[in-house]
């Protein structure tokens, strides 16, 4: 097997640098790049360990890739590692997006820029639609459990219920149904 992780645990500066690199190259979703870095290039995790970390990070609240950075950083160097990986992941992108924001404020009122944004916003919306549709292929939806996806969609998109209603009502019902189905 070529996938065995290297033994040497990375320190904080290594974690910071690698996550910064992944963040800056990751347009439209950083997670696939993070997998490449962690599993294939650095071999800090083997493929199963990565899948395990990913499923935890998808389950816990918060941005998945940020959770992955915290998990990986914590695993190799505790609080220090988690902070280093988080700072590496977020630092450069925050600066870049603020520069873009400043340019937008400066030039956003120009007709050419605002009409360009009518197009770009439409395409960005398409990206989110695609993410949602892609997730519909999950094997976990190939059962009566799909009804909870439909209820959530209707509740949030059409009835415009606050998220807390979904999390306090639909999510526990869905988990209860899943427990019952596994019995």
């Amino acid at each position, binding site marked *: 097997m070529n996938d065995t992780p290297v033994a040497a645990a990375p320190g904080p500066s290594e974690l910071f640098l690698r996550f910064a690199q992944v*963040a800056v190259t*990751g347009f*439209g979703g*950083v997670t696939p790049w993070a997998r490449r870095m962690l599993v294939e290039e650095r071999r800090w995790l083997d493929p199963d360990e990565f899948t*395990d970390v990913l499923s935890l990070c*998808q*389950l*816990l*609240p*918060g*941005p998945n*890739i*940020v*959770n992955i950075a*915290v*998990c990986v950083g914590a*695993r190799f160097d505790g*609080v220090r590692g*988690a902070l280093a990986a988080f700072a590496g992941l*977020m630092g450069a*992108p*925050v600066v*870049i*997006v*603020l520069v873009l*924001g400043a340019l937008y404020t400066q030039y956003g009122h120009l007709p050419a820029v605002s009409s*360009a*944004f*009518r*197009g*770009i916003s*439409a*395409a*960005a*919306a*398409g*990206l989110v*639609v*695609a*993410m*949602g549709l892609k*997730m519909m292929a999950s094997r*976990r939806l190939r059962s009566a459990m799909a*009804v909870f996806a439909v*209820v959530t969609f209707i509740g*949030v*998109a059409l009835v*415009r219920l606050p*998220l*807390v209603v*979904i999390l306090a009502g*639909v*999510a526990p019902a*869905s*988990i209860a*149904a*899943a*427990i019952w*189905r*596994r019995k």
Partner: protein
Amino acid sequence: MNEDPLVQLAEDFSLLSLMAVGGAITVLPEMHRSVVEIHGWMSAVQFADLFALAQTSPGPNILVVTLIGWKVAGLAGALVATIGMCGPSCVLTFAVSKIWLQFREASWRLAIEDGLVPVTVGLMLAGGFLITLSADHSVAAFVITGVTAAAVLTTRIHPLWFFAIAGALGVAGWI
């Protein structure tokens, strides 16, 4: 409700941080509700623009939060919103990660995953629906959204190309 906007940003986003099951985009509808409808910090169009701007930038797709904070309260707002959105969930992840990995085959863990996935998918689809309504104000814009979604699903073309083409079509006055 006449608080300092920084305090409100911190409150709103640290709550959203803990409600963002399945990733940051699942709270997009709630962010929209809070920022546009409740606080009136910006219009729906501005919200869609900031979202698009964040998507054109490299890095985690949570960056829309940074831009919202910045729009509301400048640099301090950007930092408060970003840390608010990441902080609570990071602390939780840090605390849970060590315990969790010991239970990889536990049936309660698989049941929780089974139960949360449908909710996450419903939230993602709702996010796509609502951001489309905010962003698109012409038939041509809906076509762009549809074509981009279809292309992202069926091809391996990088999404930034669609942003570039859609931006050019916008400048040409087609949208």
